[in-house]
């Protein structure tokens, strides 16, 4: 019950920003669709770009979702005036964290998907009315959309951690940290490959490195295990680690330097 009250509070306090965000998305989609429809009507039989909605959806899902997640704790945890309300709100620390985390991880993609579906219906109806275009509605019930949402949920956990960890410029710092982390992992992976597959290398940089079919078939089990490790790491370990660490960070900030 407390959790629901906290979620409700988060939504009510952000409703104006959410409304502006949603309106911006609808206007962008409307402009793109109308421009597309106008050109097609003017030029004639031009092949229609049916991926417009999907492209926009991916951008708003990932970029918009990451930015939204990044600023989720800014006012409550890292602002001098906002901290008081956050700390004094009669709900447990876990409820407060879970409300923000669930809204950005589950609530955001679901709301965005619903918005795209409804917006596409309205926009296509208008396009049909003004430009007599064939209808192409955004279909939220596809495997591709489901997979995108799952990928979002996994990767968004990194930005949730960044939002709780960094005191300012959460999004930029998270992106930079991920970039540095990627470079380090790439370098370590290259080193590992260089050592583990030494016979297949010629020189330090592995100029003639070739993973032939023979090698793959010889070590099929090993590659399958590595692939599953990758899957588990990406879909389970990374999100759980980020969520848990983000929660610990919230706990730490509240206990040590919440109000100074």
């Amino acid at each position, binding site marked *: 019950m407390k959790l629901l*009250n906290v979620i409700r509070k988060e939504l009510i*306090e952000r409703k104006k920003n959410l409304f502006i965000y949603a309106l911006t998305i609808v206007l962008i989609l409307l402009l793109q669709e109308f421009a597309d429809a106008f050109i097609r009507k003017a030029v004639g039989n031009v092949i229609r770009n049916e991926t417009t909605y999907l492209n926009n959806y991916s951008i708003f899902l990932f970029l918009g979702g990451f930015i939204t997640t990044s600023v989720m704790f800014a006012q409550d945890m890292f602002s001098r005036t906002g901290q*008081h*309300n956050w700390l*004094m*709100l*009669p709900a447990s620390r876990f*409820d407060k964290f879970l409300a923000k985390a669930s809204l950005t991880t589950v609530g955001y993609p679901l709301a965005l998907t619903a918005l795209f579906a409804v917006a596409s219906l309205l926009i296509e109806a208008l396009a049909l009315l003004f430009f007599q275009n064939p209808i192409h509605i955004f279909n939220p019930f596809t495997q591709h959309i489901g997979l995108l949402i799952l990928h979002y949920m996994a990767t968004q956990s990194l930005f949730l951690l960044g939002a709780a960890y960094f005191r300012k410029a959460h999004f930029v710092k998270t992106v930079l940290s991920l970039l540095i982390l990627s470079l380090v992992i790439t370098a370590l992976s290259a080193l590992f490959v260089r050592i583990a597959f030494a016979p297949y290398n010629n020189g330090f940089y592995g100029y003639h490195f070739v993973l032939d079919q023979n090698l793959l078939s010889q070590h099929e089990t090993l590659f399958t295990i590595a692939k599953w490790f990758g899957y588990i790491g990406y879909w389970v370990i990374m999100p759980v680690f980020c969520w848990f660490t983000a929660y610990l960070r919230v706990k730490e900030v*509240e206990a040590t330097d919440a*109000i100074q």
Partner: protein
Amino acid sequence: MRDIRFQYGKQPLFTHLNLTIQKGNIYGLLGVNGAGKTTLLKIISGQLFPSEGESSVLGFNPINRDPHMLEDLFHLPEEFFLPRVTTQEYVSTYAPFYPKFDREAFNRYCEEFGVDQKQQLTALSFGQKKKFLLSFGLASNTALLILDEPTNGLDIPSKSQFRRTVASAMTEDRTFIISTHQVRDMENLIDPIIVIDSGDVIFNSPLYAISENFTIGLESAQPEPESAIYTEKVPGGWMVIRNRASHEDETSVDLETLFNAIVAHPQHFRNGLEQGGAQ
């Protein structure tokens, strides 16, 4: 609170602070600027953690900020943040967190303070916002209500209304702690008085104990130094505090003079009250 130690960086603010608050009172927390009034209130409400010592608020350790403690405690800070919502939205959002919230009482307090309930909170003036939050805090019916400089930003009529409304909201199950450095605003409201100075509680006593033991009055001539505990030049004469003789009538307590006297001679007042009774 027992043996509380708190410091900002390496600068200690409280070293061995002890404080007991009895329910059913409107405590006045007084102290000079920088004495640590706001810090003490934040320690009580669990927003700051002391490095040493024990504290118990409503039966809870405040550093845990247990939701059951928080739903029975409302803390109105001197500077506050209000979300961009209407007054009605604020109430419908936050009231469910306070099980004893009284909507009718809230409307009554808002009416008494003249708060417009149809506006966006961010469109209200600072004083209006403060009166809105005061109304909400009083209507929350929490066992502990902490008000940090509540009359800052209030106009003169609102200050008198504040005293009336706070007094009317008081019950024997509630405790109010009001921090202020504007003691005139709190006259006839706060009792007992807590004074903190130099990192310690130097005075914590009900006003009747002061009246029983001391006389406070305006005199036209400066008294002999040894005949008074404290003298202070004011327009129209001298405010004088003396030990009260048993045959003397009790006088009303001038909070400003009392506060100045306590800060100047804390030991004298402590001894006077510990000995008890009129001399």
